[in-house]
């Protein structure tokens, strides 16, 4: 049942256009102060019902002289009379969807608005029912991510659609990107839409994270122990944090290819010439042996090498210095007994989500190196599998979502064409691998990649360039911009794109309380025991 509040008339449409949005004159009884950008309204047109979002609120007067000789509003009577007549509030509303109308359109569901409501159509706050019709109820495909502002209705994300394309989570530092991402990961896991591989730079998704106030929140492994595996690069860090890790990842020198080092050019402070030299060395010693060989060269051999390959001395020094830096990464070893990529793939094939913790190696060099190296191989395997599938040999592989943080380091215009992530973002779902990029500086990401992201979820951003970059190619850009820059710093996000029928500002779903865990599907020890008991009984019954 809709409450009285929602039924309340706000005003009437007085002018506007589809591209600019319609103007709504507020009734005198409605205070502009009760309005908020990002709220939903329903407009009762003569033939359709429109669903739109408030994008601006303004104060208007019928006569410019009012501002010059303002009425004596200290008199409450005059203030009351003036309100809504001489001075009035105005809303800018962007009509986004049309709901219902004839039987056919009810079956099709909400459709993008292709026209505007007629003059003086009544505007009301959207009812809970309207929102439910638009965003759907929670079911096996839809995951509840939050509630619209000032409403109790659930906004659900179509996870199956979500994972079909690469997506982005953006927002300034401290606006809740990590919480949102954690929720999205839970959503994908819960709805079995995809398996995730998370490159967890700050080790906060796997076992345990912290809120800004210092409370601990459970990570994915604690909530879904059987569906999540924690891999670590830094076993000691994991032990200190008392995290039960499943696999310790070691990467052999033989696994590092020239491209991997090229990506680290900036972090390792390599010159252009040195990076070219890497390829030369790789040709000389082979892709799998070059790094080990170069790192083990002594002074004398080095001199011989550079004279033989005609490498400039300073270039060689620069390269050696850079490569020596790699030695501080204890996860890099000359030889590994086991193949980390294969281990990750084994888990992923079984539908177990993999979270790779970086422990103390939370610098960009290690992150870029490992994330790129592993993803490239995993992607190659998926690609192979996809091709075999086309040949009818194998079943399609489970969709994989790779989560990367600080994405602008991989996907900036210089690097995005070199890294595997650039390719994944562009080639999208052909091979069942998509990205979930998390970043606080979206303007640093290549525009081409940004334009390929299916669904964008953004918390507060206030830099003009970041706003522009996130909203590129979105209809109603300037209107959304005003909404986006007015988000609160906590627990609020704007979702728009492929997985939602229209842009929506949400108050993010609660995460971190015992109740929220239970809602997400977490069973505590006692319940788990009970469930196991019941499963056993069912089995033998």
């Amino acid at each position, binding site marked *: 049942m809709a409450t009285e509040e929602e039924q309340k008339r706000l005003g009437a449409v007085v002018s506007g256009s589809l591209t600019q949005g319609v103007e709504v004159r507020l009734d005198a009884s409605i205070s502009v102060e009760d309005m908020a950008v990002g709220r939903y309204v329903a407009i009762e047109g003569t033939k359709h019902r429109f669903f739109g979002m408030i994008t601006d609120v303004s104060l208007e007067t019928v*006569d410019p002289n009012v501002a010059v000789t303002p009425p004596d509003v200290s008199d409450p009577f005059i203030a009351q*009379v003036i309100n809504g007549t001489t001075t009035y509030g105005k809303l800018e509303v962007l009509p986004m969807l049309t709901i219902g109308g004839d039987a056919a359109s009810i079956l099709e569901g909400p459709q993008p608005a292709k026209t505007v409501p007629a003059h003086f159509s009544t505007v009301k706050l959207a009812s809970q029912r309207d929102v439910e019709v638009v965003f759907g109820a929670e079911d096996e495909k839809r995951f509840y991510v939050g509630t619209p502002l000032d409403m109790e209705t659930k906004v659900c994300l179509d996870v199956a659609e979500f994972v079909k394309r690469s997506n982005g989570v953006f927002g300034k530092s401290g606006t809740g990107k990590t919480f949102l991402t954690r929720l999205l990961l839970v959503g994908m896991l819960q709805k079995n839409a995809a398996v995730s591989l998370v490159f967890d730079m700050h080790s906060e998704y796997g076992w345990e994270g912290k809120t800004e106030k210092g409370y601990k929140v459970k990570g994915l492994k604690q909530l879904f122990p059987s569906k999540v595996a924690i891999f670590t690069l830094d076993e000691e860090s994991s032990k200190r944090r008392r995290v039960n890790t499943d696999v310790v990842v070691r990467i052999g020198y033989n696994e590092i290819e020239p491209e991997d080092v090229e990506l680290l050019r900036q972090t390792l402070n390599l010159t252009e010439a040195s990076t070219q030299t890497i390829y030369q060395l790789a040709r000389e010693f082979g892709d799998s042996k070059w790094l080990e060989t170069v790192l083990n060269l002594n002074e004398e051999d080095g001199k011989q090498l550079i004279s033989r390959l005609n490498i400039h001395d300073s270039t060689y020094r620069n390269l050696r210095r850079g490569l020596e830096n790699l030695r501080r990464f204890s996860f890099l070893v000359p030889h590994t007994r086991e193949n980390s990529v294969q281990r990750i793939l084994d888990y992923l094939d079984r539908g177990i989500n993999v979270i790779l913790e970086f422990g103390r190696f939370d610098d960009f060099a290690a992150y870029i190196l490992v994330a790129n190296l592993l993803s490239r191989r995993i992607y190659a395997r998926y690609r192979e599998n996809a091709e075999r599938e086309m040949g009818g040999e194998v079943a399609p592989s489970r969709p994989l979502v790779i989560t990367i943080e600080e994405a602008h380091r991989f996907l900036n215009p210089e690097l995005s064409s070199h890294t595997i992530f650039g390719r994944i973002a562009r080639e999208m779902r052909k091979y069942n691998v998509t990205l979930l990029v998390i970043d606080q500086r979206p303007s640093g990401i290549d525009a081409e990649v940004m334009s390929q992201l299916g669904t964008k979820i953004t918390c507060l951003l206030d830099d003009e360039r970041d706003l522009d970059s996130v909203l590129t190619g979105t209809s109603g850009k300037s209107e959304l911009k005003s909404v986006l820059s007015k988000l609160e710093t906590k627990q609020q996000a704007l979702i728009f794109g492929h997985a939602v029928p229209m842009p929506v500002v949400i108050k993010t779903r609660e995460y971190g309380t015992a109740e929220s865990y239970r809602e997400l599907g977490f069973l505590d020890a006692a319940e788990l025991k009970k469930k196991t008991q019941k499963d056993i009984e069912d089995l033998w019954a």
Partner: protein
Amino acid sequence: MDIEQAKSQKPKTKNHSERRIGEVIKASSAEFAAQCYKLDEAPPLGCLVKTEGKPGEIYGVVYDVETQSLEPGRRVVARGEKLDSKDEVFAANPQLSRLLSTDFKVMVVGEVEGKSRHYYLPPTPAAIHSFVYVCQPEEVRGFTESLDFLSLLINAKILVPVDEVIASCLRNASLTHPDSNAFLVKAGKELARMLSNDINRLNSVLKRLR
């Protein structure tokens, strides 16, 4: 026959509680003038009065009250120099009440026919010698439920400041409504809409509504 006598002998109004105060002595489509039966007992400025018309009753708002000598050539002169009060002047000169008359002018604002109210000028003006009554509170309340009559008032071209008339009319009418403040706010808003292009005039009318 004396007017006083006529009134006492024949109080044949439709309703005994109705207050008859005068007769139409001059009429046009948009306004009429009436003479009071008693000197200085004209209805107040802005008062809603009615008179019979065809087919219904013509409603109007009193906008000007004037007391003067009946004979245009004969000026009223001061007579009370040696007397203590105005009443003594009349007691000493009993002919005075016959030589002076109080007239009032009424702007026509609508017509009421049975239960239907029309806020526009009636097709025919009031007939001469039609009786003029002060509207009863319930009639005022009924007539002012809609504020459409304000548009006739606001555009009137008269010698008296029309805003004063509007303000006192609304003040009077507000007393007949159960929530007089709400009525004034409603009327104020109507005025604000009508005077949207003249904010100074609106301000001054609104100040007079209190």
